[in-house]
């Protein structure tokens, strides 16, 4: 069922069993798990079904740290959320991503990969990722034209990626959501405040507003925040009537540990034989491999997790850092410029032009986990409010020395393994080879992956949510988002966001069943 909150009478009270704030990948996934159940689900979406510049402006805020995409255009404020722009690249986290690693400050989730893994197959389906296989052997066996580099897998292994079509949640799941009798989707219902009980141990209601001048109140038994990392933390921080520092923020953690995946061109692979590396560089296959580091190598070198993708050197030389070309405040314009100047639209032309000679040298492109850093954070603007009167969220993205060290060690290691295999040599980028440069350069981009800000920990002193994604100390407030990630792993987040949302829905079902029995 769909209701446009602009059309409701002012001050309407909306009531349901579960209120989900945000209808992107996480919110839509969460809502659909309740379809055809006896529970009334209220799904709140800040925008409508289409892009709307006024609604979009509610996401605006400054970026005040490492150069980044404008807040206003790095997420989309309408049904489907950022999946209406996303690239669709997906892969699974590794076991080591969840471990407490003594060389990675603030690492260690209270859950392990095995807790998320059971939800990956369904998430895979939701994202239209094709066959549920993650081992390189499967794809190599099924397609003899795919040739892996002959590297020692105990050191550098082939991590597989699947490409979603990409699934646009707002398009694919609109009918299912709006036709579900027990799912009540409210568009133009932008959450502006969450209200707790006096002792702050439960949420009573959410206030929603829109540009039509309407304010409504949503009451429910359980609340699930699904507005992604910047907006989730903003909503908690601005909700400071009962908790002066903001909800869930007794320990000054909300908004902190914002993480991205720093991405940058890091080197060149020169092969002594012309070798088309279709296995690594063909998104058209819907799967591809990237070079990843074995966990023991990460442990020995005391570095983060990271992977390297390959692209013919001539193509990679034309590619510009995303952060320099995605700078428009209007996300549609940013996306147009991105497509125009990124390597993507030149691929066919260059591949034709250079034909086979293109395959002797490859650009190396590293995507790395970043070390969780408390100073990398979302803060409320002291001066700027949006049109609905809510303080804007500013983003201060910060990196640390370990991030650069990781990129260096991984690329050096690839050089060493390529040399050991006798197939060529690797040349690092000048800034990477220069050990007086301690940090990644200014033009290091992110993948539009917003993570952290309401991190997961068993201890309220070190995390905002517990292992079940429940906000510490608040019985009925949950978060379905990459904002709960304690560390970011080396891969794009959305598959895991969807898996974590499925896990939360399963947990809530158990909890509700339990409380009904009681």
């Amino acid at each position, binding site marked *: 069922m769909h209701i446009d909150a602009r059309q409701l009478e002012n001050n309407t009270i909306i009531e349901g069993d579960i209120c989900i704030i945000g209808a992107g990948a996480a919110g839509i996934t969460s809502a659909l798990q309740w379809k055809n159940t006896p529970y009334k689900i209220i799904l709140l979406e800040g925008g409508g079904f289409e892009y709307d510049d006024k609604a979009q402006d509610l996401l605006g805020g400054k970026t005040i740290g490492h150069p980044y995409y404008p807040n206003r255009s790095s997420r989309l404020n309408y049904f489907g959320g950022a999946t209406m722009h996303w690239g669709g690249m997906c892969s699974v986290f590794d076991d080591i991503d969840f471990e407490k690693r003594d060389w990675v400050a603030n690492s260690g989730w209270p859950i392990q990969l095995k807790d998320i893994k059971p939800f990956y197959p369904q998430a895979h389906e939701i994202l239209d990722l094709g066959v549920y296989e993650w081992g390189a052997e499967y794809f190599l066996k099924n397609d003899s034209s795919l040739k892996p580099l002959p590297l020692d897998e105990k050191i550098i292994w082939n991590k597989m990626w699947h490409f979603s079509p990409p699934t646009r949640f707002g398009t694919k799941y609109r009918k299912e959501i709006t036709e579900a009798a027990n799912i009540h989707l409210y568009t133009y219902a932008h959450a502006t405040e969450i209200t707790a009980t006096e002792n702050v141990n439960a949420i009573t209601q959410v206030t929603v507003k829109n540009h039509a001048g309407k304010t409504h109140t949503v009451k429910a038994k359980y609340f699930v925040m699904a507005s992604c990392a910047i907006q989730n933390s903003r909503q908690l921080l601005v909700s400071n009537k009962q908790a002066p520092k903001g909800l869930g923020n007794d320990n000054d953690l909300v908004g902190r540990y914002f993480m991205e995946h720093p991405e940058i061109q890091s*080197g060149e692979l*020169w092969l*002594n034989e012309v070798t088309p590396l279709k296995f690594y560089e063909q998104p058209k296959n819907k799967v591809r491999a990237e070079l990843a580091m074995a966990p023991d190598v990460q442990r020995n070198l005391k570095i983060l997790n990271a992977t390297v993708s390959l692209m013919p050197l001539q193509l990679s030389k034309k590619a510009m850092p995303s952060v320099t070309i995605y700078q428009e405040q209007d996300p549609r314009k940013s996306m147009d410029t991105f497509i125009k100047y990124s390597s993507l639209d030149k691929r066919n032309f260059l591949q034709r032009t250079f034909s086979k000679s293109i395959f002797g*040298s490859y650009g190396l492109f590293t995507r790395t986990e970043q070390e969780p850093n408390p100073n990398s954070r979302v803060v409320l603007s002291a001066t700027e409010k949006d049109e609905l009167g809510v303080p804007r969220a500013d983003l201060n993205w910060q990196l640390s020395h370990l991030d650069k060290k990781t990129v260096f060690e991984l*690329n*050096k290691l690839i*050089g*060493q393994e390529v*040399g*050991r295999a*006798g197939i*060529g*040599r*690797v*040349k*690092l*980028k*000048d800034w*990477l*080879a220069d050990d007086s440069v301690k940090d990644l350069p200014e033009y290091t981009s992110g993948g539009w992956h917003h993570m952290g800000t309401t991190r997961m920990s068993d201890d309220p002193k070190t995390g905002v949510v517990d292992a079940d994604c429940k906000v510490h100390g608040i019985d009925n407030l949950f978060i379905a988002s990459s904002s709960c990630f304690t560390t970011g792993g080396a891969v794009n987040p959305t598959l895991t966001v969807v898996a974590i949302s499925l896990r939360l829905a399963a947990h809530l079902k158990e909890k509700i069943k339990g409380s009904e029995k009681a």
Partner: protein
Amino acid sequence: MKRKKFIAIAAATAAAVPLGYYGYQKSKKVYNQVNFPAMLAQFCSAEELKGIGSAYLQTVPDERDAEKLKSLLLAGISAQKITSSNANEHLNKKTEEDFLKENVKVLNQWVITHTEARQCALFSLTYK
């Protein structure tokens, strides 16, 4: 093209030459073989190789001596038995061993072995 230039140099220095038999000229050829990191040279210009060599010598100034470098590179083959083919084989083996032992350096951005670094150093001192 960088690669072409060096494939030409490689061809000029590839013949197996017994050292004692050909005298000075041939010894120069072996010298060229020793100062020539064959795999790396497929990807680097002469200037780049020299640059790598100079960068290496800055970190190990003691080795700024062509004879010393040559003997370090050829250590393990008896002087009488040196030919350019077994010198080549010896250096390839040393390079492989370096990779296995992780005796690897990053010089002028290239990830190379200690042996290759010394070959570049010798190249920078000897190649005109």
